[in-house]
């Protein structure tokens, strides 16, 4: 027994790396199915808030992420665009991460084609603007002055969907797809309470716990946390896609890491004295 523990303690961590890799690859390649995705009430809150909007409303979709967290944010972005376009809601996209623009363009193009929506008429992507929370606050003064042109360089005065859009008074809801700073936290601070706009957020799992206070205080109407949250939302929208496919690999990896914590504590049992503090 002691020999086994000693062996464990001396384990090269690259074996752990290998195990993680295999546990993620196997379910994706063999496509076995562990358990169905069951939506949480936070995901339902997100879904219902959008369902409650009347047709023809205008929603600001902030895609504040880049390829670094694409696996978590992109599926939510895609699913949110599907729900919005299915309900004939107009979408205005903005991105405060420079590398988020092509991802938002992809989302709008793909989903726009699915629902036969036209760029400029049913949706527009205003693109990136430098300045983080300053951009949000500035939009409260004037959206056309903050974003004089869209991501294609077309003046907003020539874009039908932007007609009559002055500031947040004409925006019925904000959908924040966020990876960190600047993102959901800053939208809450600079826009939600200040300009009284309702908001739902789809965020990376790392940042999700931070937003529960906002959710409980009513500053957010719904919250999707990480790829699991995206999978729940995909189920609600009725189009399981990228995130749902990843859930089996996700389950296995979680169990493995929990097991690693236990194994580590057994292996190193009594190795070091408990420290103070």
């Amino acid at each position, binding site marked *: 027994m002691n020999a086994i523990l000693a062996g464990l303690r001396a384990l090269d961590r690259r074996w752990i790396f290998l195990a993680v890799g295999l546990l993620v690859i196997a379910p994706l390649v063999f496509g076995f199915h562990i358990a169905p995705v069951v939506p949480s009430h936070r995901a339902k809150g997100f879904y219902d808030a959008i369902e409650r909007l009347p047709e023809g409303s205008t929603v600001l979709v902030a895609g504040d992420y880049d390829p670094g967290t694409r696996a978590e944010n992109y599926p939510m972005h895609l699913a949110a665009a599907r729900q919005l376009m299915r309900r004939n809601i107009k979408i205005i996209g903005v991105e405060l991460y420079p590398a988020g623009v092509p991802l938002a363009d992809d989302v709008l193009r793909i989903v726009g084609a699915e629902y036969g929506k036209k760029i400029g008429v049913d949706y527009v992507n205003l693109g990136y603007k430098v300045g983080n929370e300053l951009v949000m606050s500035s939009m409260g003064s004037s959206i056309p002055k903050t974003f004089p042109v869209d991501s294609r360089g077309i003046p907003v005065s020539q874009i039908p969907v932007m007609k009559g859009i002055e500031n947040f*008074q004409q925006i019925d809801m904000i959908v924040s797809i966020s990876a960190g700073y600047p993102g959901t936290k800053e939208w809450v601070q600079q826009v939600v309470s200040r300009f009284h706009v309702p908001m739902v957020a789809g965020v990376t799992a790392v940042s999700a716990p931070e937003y529960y206070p906002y959710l409980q205080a009513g500053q957010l109407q719904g919250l999707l946390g990480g790829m699991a949250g995206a999978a729940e939302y995909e189920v609600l929208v009725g189009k399981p896609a990228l995130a749902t496919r990843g859930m089996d690999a996700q389950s296995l990896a979680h169990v493995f890491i929990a097991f690693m914590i236990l194994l580590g504590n057994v292996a190193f049992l009594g190795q070091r004295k408990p*420290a103070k*503090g």
Partner: protein
Amino acid sequence: MLGVERGKAGVHLPAAVSFATCLCSLLLALHVAAFPLKASDTPNDGGGSITLEWTAPQPVAKEWILVRRERGGTFAPVTTIEGTVHSFRDGAVQTGVAYEYQLVAQPTDPQLDSEVSAPTRAVAAWFDRTKVNVLVVAAIFFFLLFFYIRQAESGVRWSFRKIPGLAAIEEAIGRATEMGRGILYVPGVQEIDDIQTIASMILLTKVSRMAAKYETNLLVPTNSPGVYTVAEEVVKSAYGDVGRSDAYRSDQVRYITSEQFAYVAAVNGIMLRERPAANFLLGAFFAESLLLAETGHSVGAIQIAGTANVHQMPFFVVACDYTLIGEEYYAASALLSNDARLLGSLKASDTVKIFLITVIVVGSLLLTFGQSWLTGFFSTQ
């Protein structure tokens, strides 16, 4: 006769239908019991908006057409509203102009129309009253802040509680000295203008003084030229302060690289080669917290961490012997710095916390007994 003439005039208008509807409703408004339509300036805005409210008696119309006119002008449709709705904000009016409104039922049924509202002007406000709570809370805090900073500047010192993390730092340096091994100080991965890095430089002053005194080898790898410059200055003068300038070596503080993971790989390399007895991870850390803490743990160093980055705290808590968490990290640096601005701010934060706790307790008790005015005051919606 009069009616016919008006009807003729209506034919020339482009929106003949809606005009006719308005006209009928106007005439009939005199005869049937229509419901009142209340128009008022939308409060707390920059003008350009009028809010309408109404309570329509049953049965309500399927839809309304909201019509608007300047006083003395003709009605023109603004929008279509569902019958179940009770309010509408018209954000497309001119500030200072008087408008009259009416709800016209669709399909046409003059009995279901509203009265014409009293003339109303949109006004631009000079103060947004929904933000009075923000003003009050900020004013209280800033008042306390400047009061305490002023006091601290005039030499007042308050007693603060001991911060166990500071004692742990001394203990760790002592242990390293006993074991005859070095200490490693990692000041985070942000630039020198980051407040966490500045706090780290203050803590570095203490660590380097003790290291100089005990003649323990101290290494400070940095990831930005700016931090490197300041850290070098801090360590050098600390050695001078304890009269050990001769013991200071120029390679103790190093600039490694600004690339995040390359920096981590290099610092981990130092840990594995030098096997320091104590690691200090104090500053702004991101994803690298986990890698540094793991390697440090595996070489058996005593680890003391401190950061205000919430996401990284769990990794430090499980892998380090002591973690200065968030405010504790700033407080530790404030106490060490003896800087009036920092001490005054610490004292002011504490005082405001007592105030906030009182508000929450009193507010909750009031709410439990059905009194919601304090909750209402803190509402921003």
